């Protein structure tokens, strides 16, 4: 069975409100494919320098998903946001100069449109980049297809359409879940969200088997009674 390193996926993407839907979709897809989502948001230790945190998480993840779609000019400062390309560079550096395990890292780069990145990050031109067009369904499909290739061949991973259906069902449940737990939906932390996703996915799998077994048993009982 692979260890935590093999299953950990570093998610490098914007954390603002406008991107939150895509972030949630990507995190859901990662967990539904049997992996563990990791992000710089999971550590709230202020004594640690942000860059050190990111370096540590990158070293603990075999897989990276980097979304550079929000590399654009800030309206106020008129300067580009370069956190995502920087973290992508850190990941590629770890892969290039790290030890044997770090060299086996895999990464997926996501952007809005196919050739946009070549204008601001032309050194990446040799790499195949997936696009999502700011659409959750497309993002889930690209993440799923990438993780399918990264996973061992004897493991079955659900299809993109199935994951997206499950994601829609889950996202409808989240507000009610937050209400039940007394947590405002807009203040849901990354840790809380990943916790919800993993428990919900496990809950969805377990009861189905129990119900079918019970139903079968009940039918059998009623048949014998009759």
């Amino acid at each position: 069975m692979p260890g935590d390193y093999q299953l950990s996926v570093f998610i490098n993407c914007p954390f603002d409100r406008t991107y939150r839907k895509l972030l949630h979709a990507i995190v859901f897809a990662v967990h539904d494919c049997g992996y563990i989502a990791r992000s710089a948001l999971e550590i709230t230790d202020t004594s640690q320098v942000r860059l050190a945190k990111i370096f540590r998480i990158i070293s603990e993840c075999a897989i990276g998903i980097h979304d550079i779609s929000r590399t654009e000019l800030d309206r106020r400062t008129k300067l580009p946001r370069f956190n995502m390309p920087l973290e992508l560079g850190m990941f590629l550096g770890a892969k290039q100069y790290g030890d044997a395990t770090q060299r086996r890292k895999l990464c997926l780069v996501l952007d809005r449109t196919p050739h946009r990145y070549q204008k601001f990050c032309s050194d990446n031109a040799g790499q195949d980049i997936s696009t999502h067009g700011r659409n959750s369904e497309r993002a889930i499909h690209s993440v799923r297809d990438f993780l399918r290739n990264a996973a061992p061949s004897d493991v079955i991973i659900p299809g993109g359409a199935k994951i997206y259906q499950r994601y829609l069902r889950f996202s409808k449940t989240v507000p009610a879940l937050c209400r039940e737990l007394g947590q405002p939906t807009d203040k849901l932390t990354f840790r809380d969200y990943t916790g919800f996703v993993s428990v919900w996915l496990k809950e969805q799998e377990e009861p189905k088997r129990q119900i079918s077994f019970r139903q079968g048993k009940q039918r059998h009982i009623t048949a014998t009674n009759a």
Partner: protein
Amino acid sequence: MQLARGWVAAGLKRRRGQIRCDRRAFCWLNIFMAPKTLRVVRDSKYSGSFTRQQIERAIRNVERTREVGPSVDKRHGDHSARSTKSASRPKG
């Protein structure tokens, strides 16, 4: 004896090209192909503000209210429909 005859007949047929696929290939496939297993959903790396039990309980409560909720709403809907009907019905 019959089994041996069958094998000989199948061998001859295979030689002649009358049987294209080897039945034994299925056995070989079963032996050498590793069984596929569905992916396992993993726990999140860190626990959040809530314990696993709390989340499980909340999910069950939400599902229960969802199961009960629509039927109550329907009843309400029917009542309101009836009341509007009765209200709009012309008297006399």
